[in-house]
């Protein structure tokens, strides 16, 4: 009996997923069919696109030669609104989300509290900022207050969810050690849990500050104040140089916030 079998002389890389050839064929066919269908629904009007390219060029020019001066008072007002809105909304959002985050941690609270807190988190996370803003503008009237409430509400879902997940993953031995000294629930929270999650909570708050500023540039489009309102007006008036200036300011502030918060986080840890 000979042990010789024919091996392929060249090594071929095995497929990474879907090892069965038929399945691969079916999936590839389905993807292709979807792409054809989806592309068909796009309905591109090329004449309009060509017409728009000139406008696009003007926008790029405006971006390269931004005009900070002629609408400066509007931009300043929008920026002040955005920045104050961002800070107050983050502070209030964190203050509200800390108890909700603690309530959403399965290892700390009884099941009913857990259910309620996780529901609040789910509701806050599933609604888009801009949709909340539409309703809050209808309720509170135009202006930064509506934006402040929107951002606070959106911050709750974000921070409370991540905080709750973080508390669930803490080292249980530290809790046990503190509890063994006869500590009550509040003392366990203060001495065993807070030191473990505090660096992360600070990091999350700074990150949310950054997100809130970016969002504040958007919710102005539906009337909730801030730099977004100024930007919307500039684009509506076809003042692309002012719009470019606003976008550049937003990008620079976001970059500064990102570098600042990463520096601050390193400093705190």
């Amino acid at each position, binding site marked *: 009996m000979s042990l010789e079998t024919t091996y392929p002389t060249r090594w071929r890389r095995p497929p990474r997923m879907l090892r069965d050839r038929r399945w691969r064929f079916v999936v590839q066919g389905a993807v292709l069919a979807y792409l054809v269908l989806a592309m068909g*629904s796009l309905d591109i*009007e090329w004449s309009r696109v060509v017409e728009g390219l000139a406008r696009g060029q003007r926008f790029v020019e405006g971006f390269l030669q931004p005009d900070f001066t002629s609408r400066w008072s509007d931009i300043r007002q929008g920026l002040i609104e955005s920045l*104050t809105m961002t*800070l107050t909304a983050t502070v209030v959002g964190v203050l509200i989300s800390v108890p909700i985050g603690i309530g959403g941690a399965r290892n700390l609270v009884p099941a009913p509290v857990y259910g309620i807190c996780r529901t609040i988190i789910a509701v806050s996370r599933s609604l888009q900022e*801009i*949709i909340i803003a539409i309703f809050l503008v209808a309720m509170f009237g135009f*202006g930064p207050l509506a934006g402040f409430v929107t951002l606070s509400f959106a911050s709750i879902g974000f921070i409370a969810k991540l905080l709750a997940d973080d508390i669930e993953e803490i080292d249980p031995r530290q809790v046990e050690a503190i509890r063994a000294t006869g500590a009550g629930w509040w003392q366990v929270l203060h001495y065993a849990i807070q030191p473990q999650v505090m660096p992360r909570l600070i990091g999350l708050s700074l990150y949310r500050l950054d997100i809130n500023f970016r969002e504040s540039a958007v919710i102005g*489009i539906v009337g909730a104040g801030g730099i977004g309102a100024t930007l919307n007006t500039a684009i509506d008036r076809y003042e692309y140089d002012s719009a470019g200036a606003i976008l550049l300011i937003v990008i620079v502030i976001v970059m500064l916030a990102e570098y600042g918060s990463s520096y601050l986080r390193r400093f705190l840890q």
Partner: protein
Amino acid sequence: MKPTLVPPDAPTTYADVWTFRTPRARLALWFGWLALVALFVYCWQVMNADTMWVFVADAPGQAADLGSRMWPPSMAYLPELMAPLWDTLNIATLGTLGGVIMAVPVAFLAARNTTPSRVWIRPVALLVIVTSRSINSLIWALLLVAILGPGLLAGVVAIALRSIGFVGKLLYEAIEETDARQVEAISATGASAAQRLDYAIVPQVMPAFWAIALFRWDINIRESTILGLVGAGGIGLKLQASINVLAWPQVATILLVILATVLVSEWVSARVRQAIM
């Protein structure tokens, strides 16, 4: 003289009661909180200088009024929403696809271990990523509707441009975290730079790549539901139209459809992620 282990500036007496922090740390902490509160109050006052508190006091009444108008949602409107919903899904999917295709080269140019030039090309790639990340897709859509005209195309391009930054950032971090030993092993066989990329780096980042793409698709579904507010197609157009004519029961229906879509997409992406991981 015997060497001593006690540092020269050690206190001679200790407090009887253990405290969590030293007095200096406590003072710094209180000062920090005070500064934060002061900043908050100041910002609050600047922000609300022009607020009409009459409207705010009226808000609960307005909310109740709006709620009563929205309920019950108009179910007859549901069939009309199916075509825009399909458009929304297409915006998200095609936008994610376009964004991922553009983000992959950017990510390889931005990663420290694969970039051709750390001094010249890497900062440019990072700038592309930051620019794309700091501008929300709604603002991209606002610009693109002005340039390309209203319609799905503006939405797709807006989603794609916004996705570059997100996918690019997470992907280049994944590339930087790859195991250098595998790259070394492949280059020891005499592989060229392109082969190193193909056989050592790509297989390592592939799981992360799929997870990132799916995650972004999930986010894009959310974002594409509102792009219609500025004219970029999808279900948001219907939302805007219904709000403009104050057809609140229709608004309620649209919101429910959006909520259902978001939940389904979240479920789908979670399932797929489990399957491929």
